[in-house]
C-alpha cells in the first residue's frame, strides 16, 4: 500500500516537472499548428473570418508564383544539401586525424560564417555582388567580360543563392562530421592499413560508412533549414528578378504581411508542415528505435 502510494506520488511529481515545458509547448507550438490548419480553411479580413473550405488551396494551385516558389525551394534543398554533405565529408575526412590545433583551426574557420549569421553574410554578399561597385563585377571587368549582375539575371540568380547559402552554412556539418569521425575506433583503420589499403579506400570503405547516422542527421537538419530559407532571399533578391528566386517561406511571408492574405499564407504553412512531417519520419524512426 505504501509502495503504491509512493509510485503515484512519483507519477504526480513527474507531471509537475514537465508541466511548465508542456504548457509553453501547447500554447506556442501545438495550438498554432491546429489554429494554422483552421485558418487555412478561412478567408480572413481583419476581424472577419469566413469559412471557404479548400478555396485557399485552390488559389495556391492556380498561382504560377506558388509553383515557382515550390520548385525553387526543392531545387535549393536538393543542391544545397548535396553540396553541404559532400563538401563537409571531404573536409572532415581530410582533417579528422591530424593534430588537434590544425583541426580546431579548420573547424573554427568554416564555422565563423555560421556564427556571424545569414543576415551579416547576406549583407556582405550583396556588396560583393553589386553590379556597379562590387568585387565580383570588378574581377569580371578585369577579365574583359564587362560588369556582371549575377543577381539580376534569371539564369544566374539560383546558382548564386545556392552558393552563398552553402558557403555560409557548411561549417555546422563540418563540425558534426569531424566529431563523429574522431569517434570512429582507430583499430578499424589500422587493420585496413596493414592490409595495404590506400587512404582513399579507407575513407570510402570504412570512414564514410561508419558515420552513416551522422550523414542522416546532417541531411535532415539541412533539408529542414533550407526548406525555410528566407533571409538570403529577402536581403539579396527580394524574390526577383521577376519572381525567379521566390521561395515558399518568402511567398508565405509576403502573403501574410504584405498582401494581408492570411488564409492563403496559412495554407502555405500547412503544406510546409506536411512536407517537414514527411521528411522527419526516418529521423524519428531512428530516434525511437534507439530508445
Amino acid at each position, binding site marked *: 500500500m505504501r509502495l503504491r502510494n509512493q509510485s503515484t506520488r512519483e507519477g504526480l511529481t513527474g507531471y509537475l516537472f*514537465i508541466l511548465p515545458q508542456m504548457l509553453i509547448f501547447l500554447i506556442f507550438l501545438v495550438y498554432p499548428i491546429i489554429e494554422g490548419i483552421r485558418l487555412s480553411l478561412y478567408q480572413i479580413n481583419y476581424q472577419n473570418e469566413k469559412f471557404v473550405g479548400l478555396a485557399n488551396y485552390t488559389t495556391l494551385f492556380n498561382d504560377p508564383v506558388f509553383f515557382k516558389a515550390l520548385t525553387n525551394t526543392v531545387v535549393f534543398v536538393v543542391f544545397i544539401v548535396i553540396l553541404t554533405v559532400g563538401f563537409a565529408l571531404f573536409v572532415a575526412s581530410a582533417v579528422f586525424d591530424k593534430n588537434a590545433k590544425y583541426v580546431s583551426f579548420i573547424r573554427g574557420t568554416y564555422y565563423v560564417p555560421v556564427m556571424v549569421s545569414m*543576415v551579416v553574410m547576406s549583407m556582405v554578399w550583396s556588396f560583393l555582388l553589386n553590379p556597379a561597385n562590387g568585387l565580383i563585377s570588378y574581377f569580371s571587368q578585369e577579365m574583359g567580360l564587362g560588369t556582371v549582375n549575377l543577381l539580376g539575371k534569371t539564369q544566374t540568380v539560383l546558382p548564386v543563392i545556392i552558393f552563398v547559402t552553402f558557403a555560409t552554412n557548411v561549417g555546422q556539418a563540418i563540425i558534426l562530421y569531424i566529431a563523429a569521425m574522431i569517434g570512429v575506433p582507430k583499430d578499424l583503420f589500422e587493420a585496413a592499413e596493414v592490409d595495404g589499403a590506400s587512404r582513399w579506400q579507407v575513407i570510402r570503405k570504412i570512414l564514410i560508412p561508419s558515420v552513416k547516422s551522422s550523414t542522416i542527421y546532417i541531411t535532415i537538419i539541412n533539408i529542414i533549414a533550407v526548406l525555410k530559407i528566407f533571409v538570403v532571399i529577402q536581403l539579396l533578391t527580394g524574390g526577383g528578378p521577376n519572381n525567379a528566386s521566390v521561395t515558399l517561406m518568402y511567398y508565405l511571408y509576403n502573403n501574410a504581411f504584405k498582401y494581408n492574405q492570411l488564409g492563403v*499564407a496559412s495554407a502555405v504553412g500547412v503544406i510546409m508542415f506536411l512536407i517537414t512531417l514527411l521528411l522527419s519520419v526516418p529521423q524519428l524512426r531512428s530516434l525511437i528505435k534507439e530508445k
Partner: protein
Amino acid sequence: MSHKTNNKKKMERFDVLSNAVVFIFAICSLFPLYWLFTSSLKNSSDVVKMPPDWWPRTITFDNYVDIFKSQPALRWAFNSLFVSGVSTILVIVVGAMAAYAFSKLKFKGRNLIFVIFISSLMIPKEIMIVPLFRITQEFGMVNSYNGMIWPNVATAFGVFLLKGFFDATPNALREASRIDGAGEWRTFLQIMLPIVKPGIGALFILNFVQVWNDYLWQLVIGQEKSMKTLMVGTATLMQDLNPNFAYKMAGATVAAIPMLLIFLLFQRYFTQGMTAGAVKE
C-alpha cells in the same frame, strides 16, 4: 615491403593534396568577413573605388559613429542581449525540469510525451508564423519583450540535449539523496543540477546563439524601431536611404562582433553541445 612503402607514399600525396584544398577554401571562406571589416573602415568614396584598395588607405571610424548616431544600435544590441539571455534561461529552467522527469521519474505516458516533444524539434516555428502572430496579438504581446521571448521557449531543444546528460548520471546518487530524506525538488536542485552543468553550459551557448541570430519571428513581432533586435535592425540598413556601402558594412560588423567573441571564447562548448545533440553511433 616495397609494395607497402609505395602505397604509403601515394596515400600521403592524396592526403596532402586534399588538405591543401581544405586549407585554401578555409582561407577563402574568411575573405568575405575580411572584406566586410576593411570596407567598414573606408570612407564613402574609397569603399566603391575601382580598382579597390585591398587595405583601407585612410582608416576612418566615421561609419561606426554614424551607425550609433543615426540608428538606435545600442538599443538593438540591448534587445538582442536581453531577449537571447532571458529566452535561454527560460529554456534551461523548463528544459532541465522536464529532462530530469523524462530521465529519472516514472509516470504514465512518459515515453509517448517524450517522443512528441522530440518530433516537434523537426518543425520550424516559422511555418506557423501566421497563427503564432495572431496568438501573440491576442495576448497583446506585439512589440513587447514577452512576444519576442516566449515563442522561443517552446522549443524542445533543452529537453532533448539535457536528457542525455541526466541519463548519464548514476541512479545511486539520486536514491542516496532520497534516502537522506531530501524531497524530489531538493534532490533535483542540489544534487542533480550541479552534475549536468556541462550540459547546461552547452545548451546556454547553443540556444543563445540560435535566438540571437533568429530573424523572421523578430522581424514580424518587433515592428517599432526601438523594439528591433540587432539582426533585424541591421538588415533594415539594406533598405536605408543612405547609399554609403561603408556605412552598411559598419552596421553588419557591429552585428557580427558579439557572436565572433562568443565563438572565440567558448569554442569548446560548441563542439560538445552540437555533438551531444547529434545521434550517437
